[in-house]
């Protein structure tokens, strides 16, 4: 028997547009550039609660850097960042095509999100450890990791630095401060906290930085990480890359309609920043703020990087099946590469010709690396010795693996 009251109804969040609809971003509350205060680095989290709901932006529509978050970067740094972003996009395009040509089984682009990993990869040093997901290729590229090694990994060829064991794009580069990527979403975040705790325990000065997608914040690991980061005041930067989509599920399905992802930090007593992820300068400034906090032993910061995933989720995805086809072009925060380029031009430090040159140079770099990697082999054409399949399971030999290796005849 139910009581004689009005029937309840279940709410399932839905995005503002589906295929065929006109993209609608009118629900977004976007602060204008320069509008958000910059608290002192030692501000207590309760003194800056509003920053979890505002949006830190530096570049205005004309490409001018404005407001208290302007990191006042020199032109060389800006150019380096721009070039790394251009190279990241060129790399993505080439590898996406390589997948279409059957040279690899899988690829994931970070189109529209390049500013995030590039800026953050430039700020932190290689001795710090990044705990990435699969959309931080810009981190390796900004740090000058050889493109050919990235491709060798993607092709699982004989020179794959991780011996053909991982899905393409799941790099591991300890010397570049790039932790081995897991296919299980969210697991890296509490690991980053543990790594940071270890640095603090040792009295070292290294910090950790992690990234997680908006969708994956729903995993328990994310929340466990926030608890540990707060409890032990771990020197770590915890990024949430809100690119609006988790495969076909919009960010509301992970709780983004009720509050911001940055605000998840508040209940843990952690400071939260919500930042325009397509604004290289804003990403830089916020990360630097968090870095300073971590290095001065004030613990973790949660940064929500507000952006849009322009490309399909992966080569196995067709976003036109679940979102308006041109939604990406309508993204009100623009394209990170175009915006930084515009800024450099406004500073008188760059030109359309230089941009075209940089793009051509990036394509050439990628092409050369592609040639070198493909000479070693693409997927199925070349691979490490099968013997290596039985290695690295344990530090020492195990009779089962020895017997099984013999059974394979290697």
């Amino acid at each position, binding site marked *: 028997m139910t009581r004689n009251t009005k029937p309840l109804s279940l709410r399932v969040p839905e995005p503002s547009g589906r295929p065929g609809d006109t993209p609608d971003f009118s629900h977004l509350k976007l602060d204008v550039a320069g509008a958000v205060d910059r608290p002192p680095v030692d501000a207590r989290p309760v003194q800056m609660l509003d920053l979890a709901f505002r949006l830190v932006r530096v570049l205005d529509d004309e490409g001018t850097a404005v407001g208290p978050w302007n990191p006042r970067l020199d032109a060389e740094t800006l150019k380096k960042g721009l070039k790394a972003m251009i190279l990241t996009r060129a790399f993505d395009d080439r590898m996406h095509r390589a997948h279409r040509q059957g040279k690899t089984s899988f690829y994931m682009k970070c189109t529209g999100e390049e500013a995030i990993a590039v800026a953050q990869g430039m700020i932190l040093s290689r001795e710090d450890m990044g705990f990435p997901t699969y959309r931080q290729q810009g981190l390796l590229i900004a740090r000058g990791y050889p493109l050919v090694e990235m491709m060798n990994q993607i092709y699982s060829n004989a020179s794959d630095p991780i*011996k053909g064991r991982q899905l393409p794009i799941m790099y*591991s580069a300890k010397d570049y401060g790039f932790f081995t990527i897991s296919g299980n979403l969210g*697991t890296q975040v*509490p690991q980053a906290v*543990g790594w*940071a705790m*270890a640095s603090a325990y040792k009295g070292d000065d290294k910090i950790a930085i992690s990234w997680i997608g908006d969708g994956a914040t729903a995993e328990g690991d994310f929340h*466990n990480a926030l*608890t540990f980061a707060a409890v032990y005041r771990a020197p770590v930067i915890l990024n949430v890359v809100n690119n609006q989509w988790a495969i076909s599920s919009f960010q509301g399905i992970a709780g983004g309609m009720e509050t911001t992802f940055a605000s998840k930090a508040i209940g843990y007593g952690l400071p939260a920043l919500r930042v325009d992820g397509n604004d290289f300068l804003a990403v830089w400034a916020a990360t630097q703020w968090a870095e300073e906090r971590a290095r001065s032993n004030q613990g973790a910061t949660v940064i929500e990087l507000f952006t849009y995933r322009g490309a399909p989720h992966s080569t196995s995805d067709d976003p036109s099946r679940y979102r308006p086809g041109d939604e990406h072009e309508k993204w009100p925060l623009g394209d990170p590469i175009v915006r930084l380029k515009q800024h450099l031009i406004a500073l008188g430090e760059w030109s359309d010709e230089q941009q075209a040159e940089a793009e051509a140079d990036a394509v050439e770099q990628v092409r050369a690396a592609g040639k070198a990697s493909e000479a070693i082999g693409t997927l199925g054409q070349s691979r490490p010795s099968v013997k290596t399949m039985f290695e690295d399971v344990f530090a020492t030999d195990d009779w089962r693996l020895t017997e099984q290796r013999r059974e394979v005849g290697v």
Partner: protein
Amino acid sequence: MVDQTHAPASEAPEAPAVAPMNMIQALNSAIDVKMAEDPNVLSFGEDAGYFGGVFRVTDKLQEKHGLTRSFDAPISECGIVAAAIGMGAYGIRPVVEIQFADYIYPAYDQIVSEAAKMRYRSGGQFTSPITIRSPYGGGIFGGQTHSQSPEALFTHIAGLKVVIPSNPYDAKGLLTAAIEDDDPVVFFEPKRLYNGPFDGWHQNPVSPWKTQELAQVPTGKYSIPLGKARVMREGNDVTVLAYGSMVWVSLAGADHAGVDAEVIDLRSLVPLDIETIEASVKKTGRCVIVHEAPKTSGYGGELSALVQERCFYHLEAPVTRVAGWDTPYPHAFEWEYFPGPQRVSDALKSVMAGGR
């Protein structure tokens, strides 16, 4: 060996080299000695810091080694293991406690997908030299959620080591080896044996460890290599493979049956001492496997298959398993559930009768 004749006369008299310890004290001593020796060894878990753990295995470690080396953790098994993994990647050797093995499931993904795979997936760039300790097993009226034996779930996972001691001497030596191991080790402690060997007759009191030779534990450092079984009793008629509290149950069962059984304590399931098993079964021609965990897909199935693959033509009778039932652990029926010596004895007699 230290050459005593050259020891300076002014040195303080050495601490006694051996002391009687129960399993809790022996485990504590292992962590204590390792922490004293290596500043990279940390110990943490729920209630594991100030209070020394609900079973007191980490007792006084905080007092001796400091707050940042032995501390309490949030009730977040996933967080505990994940933090340990991150620390391990940094170069630390964390020894973490999961309060009861029944609560290891929230950390399962971190153990299985992360710690176990770290070395392999990174091509050897990152490792996970962590030790995950957890009291496990039944016989303490713990009900469903304080009695489970989940070891088989971990033996199935490539990249994990699984160790289970049955006495204080082994507990300390094996835990020391686990902490020093460069791979992740899941270390299950049979809590029914913490305070004394237990023969499985539930009406019998737990006899104190101090009456046992295996409770004479060196106070200093020693280790027992992982992957070496201990022959607890030599025999000629049947091989009994057991680990944890079932080692003592098996000894009692063999006595009860009056069978000349060779009882082998496996000590570690991964790596497994296949040579000792094979040699014993080839000698006796019979094999009974005893574990507390439910029978279906338990580690006994694996042992049975290995014995069959390697010793088939030496077998006089079918390999037989004595195990927990395939039900959740029932509080009121604990003694019907717990595989006691009577069941082992019955199995031994039936294997002896089943000769060909």
